[in-house]
């Protein structure tokens, strides 16, 4: 243990504790800006500087550790002057347009600047501008970048994709796509983790709200029937944007808000998650029966960020993906066929919208080979949780007096197995619940597969399925995914079935979710989803009555010809930019 004083208050902390942590424990929080614990501890912004007795130069508290007897002052005139001036300097290179900025309210630079009692600007404002493809789902606005390097670090160290790097040198140092590539030519998975870890609006999603809500948007068009689906993980997080608890900001209250905003039908992606389980579970059991004809493990395919990752990093393994579409796309295909027929309208009249915790889904709905309903795009618009929250706010909806409303039928019923799709392990657990029933003819206890729960990055579990041991693994985060794939390729591990989600913690921690600087909320949000599961009287996808009717009336049976046509996809049907450097054992055939 080390004894130090912070602003004369003594505190004893373990050896190796940072000055920042010691100060916090002593009751003197020090502001930080570029710092992200364990991810970005590079002392770039110089906002967390403190004075240490006996040393003239100010010391960054985020990445230097306490020493015995150290006397730290967190608020001396010297510290105040440096902190203020450094934030002013950052602001001088930042295009400050807070009232019209998507991150106003969740911007760490704004938050710190607001605490420093600035009265006027002393420096010339000279942000850097750089062109960007505004059609791409991920948008970088260089004029707002404060070069904190968090995006570089999260992509390198957590997601292992190295999409971002420093560009230019010296005073012109900037952050841009690595290897001087354009973003559309890069192997970006579109996980959006760089956005959720950006302190400002330098990184954001492409905002698609205007296309829907404008005067010319489909919500205003009396000839259009707007159908919206809500992804599982959205319900665990949307209330955060309004300071509401997940117990209050429920899925049903979001339904009510969406109805107020003018959507004709509000449905649940949990429904199509159940459908995914029917298709993917059946596919898995089928592949297990023909073990010699397939390569294992079979990988889940519901995360489009992961599909992009596999196609770009390990293109020789694409056939190991389940051919099942993601729940979003299954929903779109069903909405413009089965549902249109059911309500007796021309599917061309339906506008299909999804609310997702995800950026990659924006790209997925635009894939040329994903549309099978024959009425334009199966999913027309994808909005992230953040976008829909911004629109709720724009509509001035008083959530505190808004009663809950039920989802519409027939695509509005989802099981508990469907809702846990939003957390790492959830797809695996849901699939195993149904596979067990399909193999044994009876349901397992609903919590029989809870071993795969939790936010650990790489989980393994073996289960008995009708006398056969199934080796499963669950990974989230692309760095963990790369480690798992390397181990698979080296023959160090052997699995039958692997669930992958690109974002750490799964969709709950998705790149489209509300942003809380420095907080990783995937675990908390995941727990909310498991509460939804526990409360649901339906715990099995195959018992979802609306799914049963869908098969009886329309699809026939899982993996039927119709199901294949609408609910499965060819992952080779579109091009993904490849990684600049493959892992050395990757074999890519040149066509």
């Amino acid at each position, binding site marked *: 243990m080390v004894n130090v004083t912070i602003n004369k208050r003594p505190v004893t902390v373990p050896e190796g504790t940072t000055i920042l942590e010691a100060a916090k424990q002593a009751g003197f929080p020090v502001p930080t800006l570029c710092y992200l614990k364990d991810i970005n501890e590079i002392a770039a912004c110089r906002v967390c500087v403190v004075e240490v007795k006996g040393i003239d*130069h100010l010391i960054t508290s985020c990445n230097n550790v306490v020493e015995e007897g150290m006397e730290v002052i967190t608020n001396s005139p010297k510290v105040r002057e440096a902190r203020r001036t450094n934030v002013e300097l950052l602001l001088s290179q930042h295009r400050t347009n807070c009232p019209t900025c998507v991150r106003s309210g969740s911007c760490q630079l704004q938050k710190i600047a607001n605490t420093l009692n600035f009265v006027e600007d002393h420096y010339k404002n000279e942000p850097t501008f750089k062109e960007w493809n505004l059609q791409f789902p991920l948008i970088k606005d260089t004029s707002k970048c404060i070069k904190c390097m968090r995006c570089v670090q999260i992509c390198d160290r957590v997601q292992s994709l190295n999409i971002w790097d420093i560009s*230019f040198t010296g005073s*012109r140092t900037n952050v841009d796509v690595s290897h001087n590539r354009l973003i559309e030519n890069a192997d970006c998975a579109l996980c959006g983790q760089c956005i959720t870890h950006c302190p400002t609006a330098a990184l954001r999603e492409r905002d698609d709200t205007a296309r829907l809500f404008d005067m010319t948007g489909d919500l205003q068009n009396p000839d259009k029937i707007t159908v919206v689906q809500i992804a599982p993980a959205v319900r665990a997080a949307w209330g955060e944007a309004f300071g509401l608890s997940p117990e209050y900001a429920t899925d049903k209250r979001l339904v009510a808000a969406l109805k107020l905003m003018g959507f004709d039908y509000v449905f649940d992606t949990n429904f199509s998650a159940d459908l995914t389980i029917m298709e993917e579970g059946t596919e898995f059991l089928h592949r297990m029966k023909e073990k010699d004809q397939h390569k294992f493990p079979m990988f889940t395919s519901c995360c489009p960020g992961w599909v992009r990752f596999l196609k770009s990093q390990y293109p020789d393994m694409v056939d190991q993906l389940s051919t099942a579409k993601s729940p979003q796309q299954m929903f779109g295909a069903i909405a413009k066929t089965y549902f249109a027929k059911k309500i007796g309208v021309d599917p061309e009249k339906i506008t299909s919208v999804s609310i997702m915790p995800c950026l990659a889904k924006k790209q997925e709905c635009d894939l040329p080979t994903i549309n099978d309903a024959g009425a334009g795009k199966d999913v027309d618009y994808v909005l992230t949780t953040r976008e829909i929250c911004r629109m709720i706010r724009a509509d001035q909806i008083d959530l505190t007096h808004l009663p809950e409303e039920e989802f519409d039928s027939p695509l509005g019923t989802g099981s508990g197995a469907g809702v846990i799709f939003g957390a790492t392990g959830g797809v695996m657990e849901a699939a195993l619940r149904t596979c067990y029933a399909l193999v044994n003819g009876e349901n397992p206890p609903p919590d029989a597969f809870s071993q795969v729960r939790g936010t650990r990055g790489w989980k393994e579990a073996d289960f008995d399925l009708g006398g056969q041991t199934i080796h499963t693994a669950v990974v989230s985060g692309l760095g963990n995914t790369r480690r798992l794939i390397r181990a698979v390729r080296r023959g160090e591990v052997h699995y039958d079935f692997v669930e992958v989600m690109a974002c750490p913690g799964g969709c709950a921690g998705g790149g489209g979710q509300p942003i809380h600087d420095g907080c990783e909320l995937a675990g908390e949000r995941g727990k909310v989803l498991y509460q939804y599961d526990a409360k649901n009287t339906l715990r099995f996808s195959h018992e979802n009555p609306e799914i049963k009717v869908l098969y009886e009336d329309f699809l026939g049976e899982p993996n039927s010809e119709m199901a294949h046509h609408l609910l499965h996809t060819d992952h080779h049907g579109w091009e993904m930019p490849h990684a600049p450097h493959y892992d050395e054992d990757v074999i890519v055939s040149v066509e």
Partner: protein
Amino acid sequence: MTTSRAQSVVEGLYKDMERRIASSPPGLCPIDLTAAFLKMCHAQTCGKCVPCRVGLGQLGNLLEDVLSGRGTMEKLDLIERTARVIVNSADCAIGIEAAKMVLHGVDGFREDYVEHIQHNRCLYHLDQPVPCRALCPAGVDIPGYVALVKAGRYADAVRLIRKDNPFPTACALICEHPCEARCRRNMIDAPINIRGLKRYAVDHAGVVPTPKCEPSTGKKVAIIGGGPSGLSAAYYLQLMGHQTTVFEKRPKLGGMLIYGIPNYRLPRVRLQEDIDSILSTGVRVHLNSCIGDEEGMLSIDQLRQKYDAVYISIGAHSDKKVGLEGEDAEGVISAVEMLGNIGDNVIPDFHGKRVCVIGGGNVAMDCTRSAIRAGAEKVSVVYRRRKDDMTALAEEVEGAIAEGAEILELHAPTRIETDGHNRVTALWASPKMIGKVSRGRPAPADTGLEDVRIPCDVIIVAIGQGIETRHFEAKGIPITRGVIKAENWSAVENAPGVFAGGDCVTGPATVIRAIAAGKVAAANIDEYLGYKHVISVDVDVPNPDLSDKVPCGRVNLRELSAAERKGCFDPFEIGMSEKEACQEAGRCLRCDHFGYGIFKGGRTKEW
């Protein structure tokens, strides 16, 4: 009075800038740097002539346009035209030389201009965050071991060094320390004495055991040549679990470290410390084993059959002839021969003899100082350029002078005079004057003066070494310009399983480059054998000292006086005291923690 005070401050700033430029990090955008230099040049203009007063400023504006994404190809033409006009018409060097700099750049990094203009991007990238480590060919974790020296953890320092360099002691004594060249401490006062600190570590670490070898792979690797490169490769390959066998032509291991570097610089007992550690990993050694086709020798083909891989690291041990009349006379010896004999403890007796050394490199200085120690009455170094142009380290030249050597600069040897018994009687040399710069160095030019006679009994030719390539060439190993041709990852083309590195590939170079080549070869041989072993060390580097970095002199190593040292081959460099080592280590700016290093590239824990 105020003016003179201001002037003296400015003089100080000039010195600060000189040191700053010396420690400029590699990888910076050359156009950005040109623009910055140009700004300073423009500040120097006297203001009289138009091209300099106005033109340099306009050039600056145009460069700024290119750098800010407002460039066009037409503007690039205008940059060129403007610079050309300044070069052609400015009145003095202030303008002419400034504009030349721009012109050189437009030619030298034109592709970067085009990249900026067409894509608003830069081709350059700051990729060497820790200057010392980046400039060490072997990539040794210098801030790491300097911090360990400061913490008094000398054995850990040695272990950390050995992760990248199995010759910590040899390098502590004789490394040319390229690491110090761009040390960031230069911005404050002077570079850290890195070699001196390494010396302190090895002098105080005691015997440090080598790490445990990985389980045996059953693979066998033959290494031809037991010098620094071959032994480095052997060391890492042993750690990876491969069985190496070193074939050394001479009776002792060490290569140029023993057969090229005299004992007073690298004492045999100290070199043996490194060799013993390396051998402790289980390297097998065959001394007096020449590779060739003659009776009793193994050929490279036989080695390729018997071993899974072969590393050729034969060094550069053959002498180069100076091509003078009388070169075959008795009394003319090559540097390689003389230093080689000394390595085998055959010390020549030069008592009462006058010696001429031809050459200006470090080897020439080694010969000069060895000749003095061998009792020579007089030693003259005959060199065709100026003393300042010698490639030998300045301290070696000064050391030789202090020990009584005479430097006969600007004299080009023309012939060797002999007596009737073909014994050397004198060296004739043509007096030169220094002339125009050619390929970066001023060339000697004719004076028209008559040749001078330098009476002498012994002539030592130290004008470079060659590589004994005949056997390898005959067996199909590619040779270009006298060296073995190998890829930069050390594989030899069209000879699967054969790798080469060190002096025999680069030509005579430094020990640390040879060590680095051995390291690269080990990694690639391992991969060739189907493995991907990792070399790492579990040494925690201490946290940096947060105290202020106030200017402080650099501790230089002291030497015994010339009178004390020149009579024998004993070492004369004196290591630091504990207090000195602690102060010197404390000067380190810890670029692994402060600056770019903590973001990227500050520490590589394994390779």
